[in-house]
């Protein structure tokens, strides 16, 4: 089991996209474990160590959340709102990664406390490049809060 802080929590319902993101992160040299949840409700269960994540060690605390917006059940924006209202999780940076480039979604995401908003690239090289930039900024330049 990875330790707290070694994990990027990915909220993404599409397994094909999960594969792409895992691979792009790896190609970009992001040496973090990626835990995956399929919708907003599961994301909250993970953060609250509830539901399927009750067992000790089954949900190591993430240093970052990568969040899709369009998910079944509780969508990404609602989940983002819940995360930012929870004092235990509010300081975790949330990067929205979605196909939507609607102005309404972008504004809502930032208003709800997203750290950044990235539209899913259209090709694999684009994914790798976006992942490199995420690595450079979030894991090399920026200081992240200590994960307790």
């Amino acid at each position, binding site marked *: 089991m990875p330790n707290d802080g070694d994990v990027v929590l990915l909220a993404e319902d599409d397994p*094909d*996209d999960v594969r792409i993101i895992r691979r792009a992160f790896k190609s970009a040299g992001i040496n973090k474990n990626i835990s995956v949840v399929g919708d907003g409700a599961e994301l909250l269960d993970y953060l609250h160590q509830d539901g399927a994540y009750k067992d000790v060690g089954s949900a190591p605390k993430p240093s970052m959340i990568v969040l899709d917006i369009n998910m079944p059940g509780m969508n990404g924006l609602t989940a983002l709102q819940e995360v930012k209202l929870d004092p235990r999780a509010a300081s975790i940076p949330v990067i929205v990664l979605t*196909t939507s480039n609607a102005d309404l979604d972008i504004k809502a995401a930032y208003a709800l406390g997203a750290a950044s908003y990235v539209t899913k690239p*259209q*090709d*694999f090289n684009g994914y790798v490049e976006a992942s490199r930039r995420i690595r450079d900024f979030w894991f090399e330049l920026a200081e992240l809060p200590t994960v307790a």
Partner: protein
Amino acid sequence: MDGTMARTKFALFEEFQHMADSLDLGFIALSASGDVQAFNTAYAVLAGIDAATAPKDIKAPAALGSSDSSPIEASLRQQDGRQIAVRADRVSTGANGEKALFVREILGDQTLQAAKRKHEETIRRFDILTDRSGMGMWLAGPDNLILEANPAMARLLELAGSDALIGQDPFANTPLDEQPWLRESLANLSPDGAASIRHNLLQASGTVIRVQSDMTRDPVTGGYITFVRDVTEEEQLVRDLAGRNQDLEHFSIAASHDLREPMRKITIYAGMLEEDLADVMSDTARRDLAVISDASKRMSALVEMLSVYVNLKENIGAPKTVELVPLIKDVMEELDTPDGVNLSIDAPEPLFIDEAALRRLCRAVLSNCIAYRRQDAPLIIQAKAQWKSADTVVLTFTDNGEGVPQDQRTAVLAPLKRLRSQGISPGSGMGLAICARIAEYYGGSVLLQASSSGGAVVIIELRLTRQDTNASLNCSIGEQDDAQRW
């Protein structure tokens, strides 16, 4: 009469004259000795004289000047010799015995009959006209009782004939007593006495239909006339259309997301495959994979452009003041512009338009200028904005490229029409179609012509609110941006 009094009298006469004229009532002012001081147009008609005749040049019947009683009946001899009976009501008597009277013709039985026949004929013609259009009509007096109704109105109510409606109070009697809309429409009469409402109408069979009633109050009689038309089918069509639009909207949402999503994955997985097999893949396999990837990207772009096209009008935002010169330069920076392009922009006035729509429009035209440029000469583009009228601006883009063959100048404005195959020139074939749609939104059009060098001239007319109304219509007087070389 001293001067001041004469002027006061004159003003009073003027007022009487206008008032009487508006009521088609003759007016005449006489001195104590019976000389005519003033008269109005309606009196001139009664007396059969020219309204421009000076008062002193006409004579009024002696009875009008001599009698002190009111009303007075007198005989008025018209210029053609015909005598008509008139009745005069004294409205003013001056200190010196001068009189002002309203005069109207006393209609004999024969005249009354003729007037009634004329009225009936008018109503009959009106009935025919409204009936032909299937429009119901009913006319009520100030007591709300129906005076007239046409056959179409009876048909709307499923009554045997319109006679059944005459004399009825539409607010009290069946089958109209179940029509609360009548009260509603009267309550909604605007200050000028008009109301237009849509409401249910109960037919004799119990069927409820939708109708539009346009009511107008007659300020003179206090009654009102109402035109009623069946809008049941029209409203159903509007509902159907709204449903279809919703279906289309759902489709376009699906197109913009669900259809693009698999395309995106094909592109990405082709890229992953290429990376996985980089060391073992043949050049042919690499080329084939690139074709898959390109085709999928193109398909994705095409679906996006189709989605833009379908939803364009709904997505055009509020207008704001936009400077065309920096916008065009910005678009050129964004495009894959070849070296040595000579661009001149003549647009001295800002436009009041949605910036995103204008940007999309310029981008579509300019990308075509670049895509269809000649290979043997530097590309020259001239952009110009000129006000054709107070509310119409004409944007003209002229280039020295390959031009558009005359027989294709209309066809290329339709979606997915391209001048060349994909392999020769990239593009979705949606650019000019989107231009045409934007122009259509702004009440204008797009026209293609040939330039003097054989290139294309794209003329886009847009109806916009002009910001600087003091500016000259001829933009060539305005400041011209220096030609810019890329």
